[in-house]
């Protein structure tokens, strides 16, 4: 049991990923500690989602390897992965709700796939409590098409935590939510970590959220990790790329490019 606490929950080693000739991840190595919340930040399109999908073997590496505890998972077949994936909850960036199923059916999907549902009352209670966590109790019979973008995201979050997974991967949990909702989600992530000692990995653009929830922040840039440490370390990081990103200020080069490109076409 003791040794179980020492090995990282997820471990990525020398991960390289190419799509055709495009190099997206260039030799990434990370160990994710048990019970900690890790935030991954970085500019749009830098490969955060791709990296996160490797951690649950939804994408396969071009080279390198990925481990869950001490099982190598990147070369497993669909069937072998089924058992491992039961430990995970994954919140997709776009929600990925099943649009032919109601909110209720969406949330019980992972439960239904694992075991036969006998006590229906209990399941109803469970769905109710998970929806209440994201502030959407009462939406059980709605179809995803009738929900707003932010509501879909929250239902997807409820689905991701339905089975009380040990590891939760959140892909931009607060994007598209109002500030108040965002903070509720932040509190939810903290609560899950405190009460169920969940290991969380959060991809986010929202620096407030990252500083609030993360024990450790990684910054991804051009396929490499350029900064790795706790909130204070990142705040005072010397690299100008990191500083620009966390402060949300535009660099001289981008400004020059903006100035060059006219907003009106001259005749």
């Amino acid at each position: 049991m003791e040794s179980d606490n020492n090995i990282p929950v997820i471990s990525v080693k020398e991960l390289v990923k190419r799509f055709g000739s495009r190099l997206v991840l260039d030799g990434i190595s990370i160990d994710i500690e048990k019970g900690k919340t890790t935030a991954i930040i970085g500019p749009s399109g830098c490969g955060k989602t791709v990296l996160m999908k490797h951690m649950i073997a939804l994408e396969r590496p071009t080279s390198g390897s990925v481990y869950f505890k001490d099982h190598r998972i990147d070369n497993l077949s669909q069937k072998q992965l089924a058992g491992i994936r039961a430990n995970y909850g994954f919140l997709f960036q776009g929600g990925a709700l099943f649009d032919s199923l109601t909110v209720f059916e969406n949330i019980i999907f992972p439960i239904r796939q694992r075991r036969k549902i006998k006590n229906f009352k209990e399941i109803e209670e469970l769905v109710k409590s998970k929806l209440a966590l994201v502030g959407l109790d009462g939406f059980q019979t709605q179809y995803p098409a009738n929900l707003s973008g932010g509501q879909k995201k929250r239902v997807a979050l409820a689905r991701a935590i339905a089975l009380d997974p040990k590891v939760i991967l959140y892909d931009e949990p607060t994007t598209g939510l109002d500030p108040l909702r965002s903070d509720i989600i932040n509190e939810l992530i903290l609560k899950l970590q405190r009460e169920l000692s969940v290991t969380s990995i959060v991809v986010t653009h929202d620096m407030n959220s990252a500083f609030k929830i993360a024990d450790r922040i990684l910054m991804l840039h051009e396929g490499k990790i350029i900064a790795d440490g706790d909130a204070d370390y990142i705040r005072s990081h010397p690299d100008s790329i990191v500083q620009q990103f966390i402060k949300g200020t535009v660099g001289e080069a981008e400004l020059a490019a903006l100035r060059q490109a006219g907003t009106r076409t001259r005749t």
Partner: protein
Amino acid sequence: MIESIGRNTIGLINGVGMFGRFSARTVATSCASLLQPKTYPLIWLQMYNIGVKSVGVVMVTGAFVGMILAIQGYDQLHSMGLEERMGLLINISVVKELGPVLVAVMLAGRVGGALTAELGTMNVTEQIAAVESMGTDPVKYLVAPRVIACLLLTPVLIVYADMLGILGGYFEGVIQHKINSAAYWNYSAHGVELWDIGVGLTKGFFFGAAIATIGCYKGFNCKEGAQGVGQACTEAFVASFIAILAINYTFVVVAKAIYDTFWIGESLL
């Protein structure tokens, strides 16, 4: 020039290989699904979507084919005084070839297109990845029920089309053109063997499996966006259509060889 031919060839071989792997996985998973009662509700649902909703259109197709064959055939046969044999001509064409092939083409458009669009949209919106992320094999959850439903129901739909085709021919021949009814049926019964019906229905299994597998494969590999889904549907229909013709050709050749060697003419009635 040579480079582009090379690239296309490699792409084609790649595509065939991927489709082969996908089909093998589908077959294995479908066989396993048939042994697991847990998956039956999914299959039922697909049977309703694929089968029940197609009955009407398939029956209309069959009826028109029968009637048109009768109209076209009547003059030819009448000029030779052979119109009483028209039942044989129509029924054997309907049961052996036109029924199965037209039903399959109909389904390739109606069912194959819907499958590709549905799974393609699910792929683009990451719903397939979501199924996978929850530890469920998407081939088992999404593909196998559709393939099984399509495979089991295509022969049934062919029976409907055959029946209506036969009735359509009867209506045109006997009722409109006043061919002697008893003679019409007599010739039909002597000419159409159980073998012919069997071949027609057996084709149905293969057509159904091919349509659903191709539809699902194209959906699973569909490109982003509305255009990607549209393109996948078109490709799925064209590929299914070619597959139907190819399977049909193979079947005719093989069935004829088997018939010539083994069948000891046992006619209906």
